[in-house]
């Protein structure tokens, strides 16, 4: 799962300040056709304040259910970032990502070392590496499976 190995996927680009209401239904508020175009393993690259607004989990769950492998944005709203990770989907804040990746590029992401490589041109970009705790949550598939597993191993 996400926390254990690198993530590799194709980029779909979106703009700034997308609130969770417009992300709901797999980005339906921005592109109603997107849900048909996206494939499991794809990566969303967005601008600032991705997922701002409501704490409703409809929006992040729709991305998870569509098989999105990671969200990389200039910035991600706190609730949204924690929710995605708690659902087992890595959300990465990476200033400068908008200029680094283009629609259709292929990215390889390593959460532990905090590196994103653009496979089109070989360029590498850094982001603050994920904490062990966050990687632990992701490797179990999210908070709920993590809690199940941690109790089992403790008892």
């Amino acid at each position, binding site marked *: 799962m996400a926390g254990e190995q690198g993530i590799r996927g194709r980029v779909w680009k979106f703009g700034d300040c997308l609130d969770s209401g417009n992300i709901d239904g797999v980005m339906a508020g921005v592109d109603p056709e997107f849900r048909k175009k996206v494939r499991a393993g794809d990566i969303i690259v967005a601008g600032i304040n991705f997922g701002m607004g409501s*704490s409703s989990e409809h929006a992040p769950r729709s991305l998870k259910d569509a098989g999105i492998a990671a969200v990389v944005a200039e910035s991600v709203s706190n609730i949204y970032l924690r929710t995605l990770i708690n659902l087992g989907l890595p959300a990465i804040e990476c200033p400068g990502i908008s200029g680094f990746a283009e629609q259709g590029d292929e990215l390889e992401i390593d959460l532990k070392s905090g590196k994103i490589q653009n496979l089109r041109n070989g360029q590498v970009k850094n982001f603050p590496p994920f904490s062990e*705790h966050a990687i632990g949550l992701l490797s179990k598939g999210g908070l709920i499976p993590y809690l*199940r597993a941690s*109790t089992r191993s403790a008892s």
Partner: protein
Amino acid sequence: MTLSEKICARAAGLSKIGPGDMITAEVDKLYIKDLRFAKGEDPRGLYGVFKELLNAMGIHKAWDPAKVIINFDEQPARTKKRAEGQLTARKFQEEHGATIYQGEMGGIGHNVMVERGHVRPGEFIVGADSHSCTYGALGCFSTGIGFTETVGVLATGKIWLKIPQTMRLLLTGKPPPWIWGKDIVLRIMAELGPNGAVNKSIEFGGEAVKDISIESRLCICNMAVEMVALNAVFPPDEKTVEYVKQVGDGNFAAVHSDPDAGYESSRVFDLSEMEPFVATPGLPCNGQPISGARGTKIDQAFIGTCSNARIEDLRVAAKILKGRQVRAGVRMVITPASYGAYFQAREEGLLEIFQKAKAMVTVPECGLCVRPSLAAGEVCLSSGNRNFSGRMGDREAKIYLASPASVAAGAVAGEIVDPRELL
């Protein structure tokens, strides 16, 4: 350490923390809105997911029912799903224990939390709704959490959190009368820009704070999530202590920032020459002095939401509407934020003023902020906190955000005007 860092450190059982640290904090209080119990975000519903988790963990009870507060934000429920959610919340209460506010004890959860004394300085509070950041007005750390995280807190009492940098926003100068919390926060947001406080902790300070009412502070902190901040806090002062003692048992331990606390940045906002502010459609940070939007025709005027429909807001609306009429062709809807505010307004004769002015007064609930009421092309002037496209109905409708004074003045004029013109 800053005020927020100190509260987080205490909640995590650590003596010192700083920006970037990952902590596991034990929460003092968990707020849950009834909608979270409806089968929506997860087909099993919150209680279903929670029960499955408890079974897997081999435990039988929620972590601490005395710390769980549930509120019914919509009463009576308008959909079957929501009605089932409320029934499930009551079942949860029977089986695990929790405090539920419903009927005439309720209103909008955030206002109920504050007015019923559940929010105290120094506490670490999380709420299953994004506007749980409101409580920081009383000197506590509070932030909103999602569905999955709520299940986790119910089971373990803990959440993980990355400690952010703290921004200090200093308010100086004497704010003129007719400048309210909403005007101040819309201006701050406009000056900071859309990326100005993302995932930061905000701490207010400065000599003007003492002149800002608790209700205006609640409105300012309510908008912290619109700044995409993690939390916002007003250091507790005499006003805070007086308010908290009035609504609760007065049992709390106030926390203050250390004199050598580390702030990422500091900004000063001089309030002395301020004009009322309005945010134009799209983003809450689209604020500008109200003169710039003057003359914009409106179809709907809405005073409501957890942002601005407290008694202070209803009083100023009544002051403007007294002896006046809502302009023909404009729908004005006034939804007090809680039954506390509603009953107080009734006692003071405000509801009668609203009705004589031909405004529609509804029962306290989230109301039009979460229920579509706008058709394509319509314009709403709202005291709420969100003006995203599609938030209140059709995506082609437009939402302007302003203080209740400006909304009331706009309702009378049929267009956006400076509320000082109706003094």
